[in-house]
Each structure stands twice: as structure tokens, then as C-alpha cells.
């Protein structure tokens, strides 16, 4: 069982490494300064370790609020140390809410117009 877990973990780390590599490659092209393979591996490793810290914090915040599901409020708390980061995450959260509201409006908008049409025909 633990061998499977270890394999799954390795696969996740490899997935992180892949994306980190792509981000660094693009940045290397944009800024004309390439990243050594060692640096890319180090950033990927650090990102995974940072996820450990994030996850433990998220879990603690959720538990503190007597929830078992981590919410966006917990994420906003994790981003509290840097003002710029905090604002960025706040904005992303509002963007997400706005998109969800827009999607809801589309489906209820049709219903509402149909309702008013029915009312008008009744009158």
C-alpha cells in the first residue's frame, strides 16, 4: 500500500516539476536568461514543500472554523503575509464569484423572461 502511495507522490512531484520547467523556460525566453536544470529542480522541490506548509495551514484554519472542507476563506488567510499576494488572491476570488454569478444569471434570466411573458399574457 505504501509503495503505491510513494509512486503516486513521485508522479505528483513529476507533474509539478514539468509545469515549473515550462514556467521557467518561458521566463528564460522572455528575459533572455536561462535557468539551469538544477535551479528548476530546486524551485520544483521548494514548491512541493511549500504545498505541505499550505496544506497544514489550510487544514488548521478549516478545523478552527469547525469545518472539514477547506474554503476560499481559508485560502485568503494563507495568503495573509504579503499584502500584494493577499489582494491578488482576493481579486481572483471575486473573479470566480462573478463568473459563477454570470453563469447563474444566464440560466435564471431565461426563466424570468418566460415568467414575465406568462404573466403578461394572463393579464
Amino acid at each position, binding site marked *: 500500500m505504501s509503495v503505491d502511495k510513494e509512486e503516486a*507522490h513521485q508522479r505528483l512531484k513529476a*507533474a509539478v516539476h514539468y509545469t515549473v520547467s515550462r*514556467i521557467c523556460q*518561458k521566463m528564460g525566453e522572455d528575459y533572455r536568461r536561462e535557468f539551469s536544470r538544477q535551479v528548476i529542480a530546486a524551485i520544483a522541490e521548494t514548491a512541493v514543500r*511549500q504545498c505541505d506548509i499550505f496544506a497544514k495551514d489550510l*487544514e488548521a484554519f478549516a478545523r478552527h472554523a469547525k469545518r472539514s*472542507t*477547506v474554503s476560499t476563506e481559508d485560502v485568503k488567510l494563507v495568503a495573509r503575509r504579503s499584502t500584494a499576494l493577499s489582494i491578488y488572491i482576493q481579486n481572483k476570488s471575486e473573479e470566480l464569484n462573478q463568473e459563477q454569478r*454570470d453563469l447563474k444569471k444566464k440560466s435564471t434570466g431565461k426563466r424570468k423572461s418566460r415568467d414575465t411573458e406568462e404573466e403578461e399574457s394572463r393579464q
Partner: protein
Amino acid sequence: MTNPYAERQDSLTTSQNMAERDAEIGFKKETVSKLLSSFFKEDKTRLGGDAVLLMTEMLKVFVQEAAVRSQKQAESEDCDQVDIEHFEKILPQLLLDF
């Protein structure tokens, strides 16, 4: 008569716009979700959908910050390539900032 395809096309354009906006390289939310979940101490702890999306963003920002700061360090030292010592120098502050 309403065109049943009109609404579907609208949602397609929206997701196309979203896809164009997110054409930047980023982490897959499945990867982030599984990774974070693997570090939870309790089995009952779950990750909300929106929380995963936000954490995906945050992880991307973390990696971008690590990369940009390393690059600026390499630049300040007049180096052609970003090497491990540049990353090592910016790492402490990066961790403090997050």
C-alpha cells in the same frame, strides 16, 4: 423560436475567452488538489472546488516569484544563466513572504 444552440455557443465563447486568458502556463487543478490532499493530517479534511482554483493560482504565483527573483539576482551579479546560488540567495526572503 429560441435556438437551442445559441446558448451553448455563448457558453463556448465564454470558455474560449477563459482559455485564451489562461493560455499562460499553469498547474492543473487535479495535480494541486491531489498534492495538497496528500499532505492533510486527517482523512476527513476535504478541499472545496473554489479553494483548489485559488490555491492553483497561489502556487503559480509562488513559482513565478521564485523564478523572477532568481533571475533578478542573476542579473544583479551580471551572470548569463540563472544558477543555484542565485536561487539560494533569494530563497529565505521568498519563504518569509509566503
